[in-house]
């Protein structure tokens, strides 16, 4: 008998003996030695969110995006920084409400085998009366938790419930996995962006014409109606990183859409944006020749199970992130 086997026999005998006689901690061989962990525990998430809310409150109070760089990253940081830039310009003309009332309603995390780790927080924003479905991510073992996406839904919007495994952990869905779904998450998001860019494209029929699409088309129509301005709008997508199985077999997909509004000004004409508008904030002064505004829109898309309807967006959070013009 090898030393290992002998040790196991002794340990098993000891375990048997102890378990038969006392309620003391008995060594047990682990069933599963896979290298995974639930990304974060609820109590840990509470501390992370408290830190986030504190830093965000300071950033809003000072209209300063710098503190946000320690708690946010990626498109959501760009959106919030842009929003604060607009707000700072607006503050010169009117008072800004910097109050916040955030209540964490649900926190859930998936079981993951490697970094980046991430978790979902469903938060009620009492000031804006919306529900924020946020994802916090930690890129490496030495980095901080940062919020990376934050689509918002109306309070009245009913979110599909998340599917949970035996450890009450979320079940991620691969972006390219269409198993049981109307469309794979990435394909659904690509079709959605195509529908936004061109309603007549064949891919547009794969997704539902929801209120977000209508709202974006109305804005594009308004911009295109400015006399002496040739307006165009392009849409793109970032690779889908977060998709979660819902309890009915569908998926909730967190996606980031890129939007670019381009303005070509006819010779001899100039465009002066309304004071306090996002165009004014990013395109200082009048526009004489051309201008470009870039937006991020983070959307929460529901992809139903196969045969139960088309993918649709339940909520979004977006804004201008950069612009240039002359």
């Amino acid at each position: 008998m090898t030393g290992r086997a002998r040790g196991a026999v002794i340990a098993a005998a000891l375990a048997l003996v102890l378990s038969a006689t006392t309620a003391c901690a008995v060594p047990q061989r682990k069933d599963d030695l896979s290298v995974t962990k639930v990304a974060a525990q609820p109590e840990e998430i509470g501390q992370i969110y408290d830190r986030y809310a504190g830093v965000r409150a300071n950033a809003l109070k000072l209209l300063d995006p710098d503190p946000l760089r320690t708690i946010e990253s990626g498109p959501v940081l760009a959106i919030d920084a842009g929003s604060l830039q607009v707000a700072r310009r607006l503050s010169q003309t009117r008072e800004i409400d910097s109050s916040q009332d955030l209540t964490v309603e649900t926190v859930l995390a998936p079981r993951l085998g490697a970094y980046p780790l991430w978790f979902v927080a469903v938060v009620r924003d009492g000031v804006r009366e919306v529900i924020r479905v946020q994802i916090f991510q930690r890129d490496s073992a030495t980095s901080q938790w940062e919020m990376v996406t934050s689509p918002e839904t109306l309070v009245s919007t009913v979110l599909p419930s998340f599917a949970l495994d035996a450890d009450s952990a979320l079940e991620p869905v691969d972006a390219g996995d269409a198993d049981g779904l109307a469309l794979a998450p990435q394909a659904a998001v690509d079709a959605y962006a195509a529908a936004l860019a061109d309603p007549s494209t064949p891919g547009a029929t794969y997704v539902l014409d929801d209120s977000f699409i209508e709202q974006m088309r109305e804005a594009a129509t308004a911009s295109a109606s400015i006399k002496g301005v040739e307006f165009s709008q392009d849409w793109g997508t970032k690779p889908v990183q977060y998709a979660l199985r819902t309890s009915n077999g569908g998926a909730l997909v967190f996606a980031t859409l890129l939007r670019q509004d381009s303005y070509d000004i006819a010779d001899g004409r100039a465009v002066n944006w309304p004071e306090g508008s996002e165009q004014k904030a990013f395109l200082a002064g009048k526009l004489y020749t051309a201008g470009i505004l870039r937006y991020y829109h983070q959307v929460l898309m529901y992809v139903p199970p196969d045969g139960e309807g088309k993918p649709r967006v339940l909520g979004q959070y977006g804004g201008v992130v950069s612009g240039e013009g002359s």
Partner: protein
Amino acid sequence: MRRVAGVLAMLLALVLVIAGAATAIVVGPDNRVVTGPHEIDTEAVAVVTKPSALSWSGPTVSVLVEVPDEKPVFVGLGSAVDVEDYLQQTARVQVDDISVPWKIATSSVQGRKNLPASPTALDWWLADAAGLGGASTSFTLPNQTVSLAILSVGDSDLEGLQVTAAYDVSGGFGSGIGLVALGLGLAVLGWLLVRQRHLLQPENVEEVVYVYIDDDGVEHEIDPATAHEYEIVEDVELTDPGQPASRWHVPGWMGR
């Protein structure tokens, strides 16, 4: 049947007594099995267990790490996901296997000679401690896959590292004593079962019969009181298999 049960009970009792005594002796009154200090020969900045090395959950383990010259040292237990990510680019000694109480197999992993961040600045350790010249931490091995990391802090290394491990077995000593007591009780029960066969049989009653033999050689049974008036000339013991032994006293004729 009772005899077989009794023998089995006594055999089981023997096992329990041996196991209980062994447990009590190994664990001791402080309910702790201590091994070490054991030297780990390395000049690296990290010694870390492979995820599969800590394959048991349940027991409470205490680890004392010591380095010479008051060098700063850190010891921590973390999820294998966190520890692997943290040390993935660091040169380290990897403990591939641990046999209780202390037999380890190690391998060297090449990499950078420094840590990506101070271990004391990280918030995901499940248990940790740091100190100058030594550090000690205690933890209950969880069911999730974990790694134990011994790390140098600052610019130092782990040369001269010594590790002492203690396995806490809460209630182990009492359990051992309890097993001994249980075994002894079972032994008594077994003995009684074995002995019961004899106890249930008719008791060996010595029956004494007094016989007077007259001059013609004819035997006459007499009562004990009468017999005491005579001299006992012969004492004969008779046994009949399956029957109680009989003792015959043959008084001789003494005359009145």
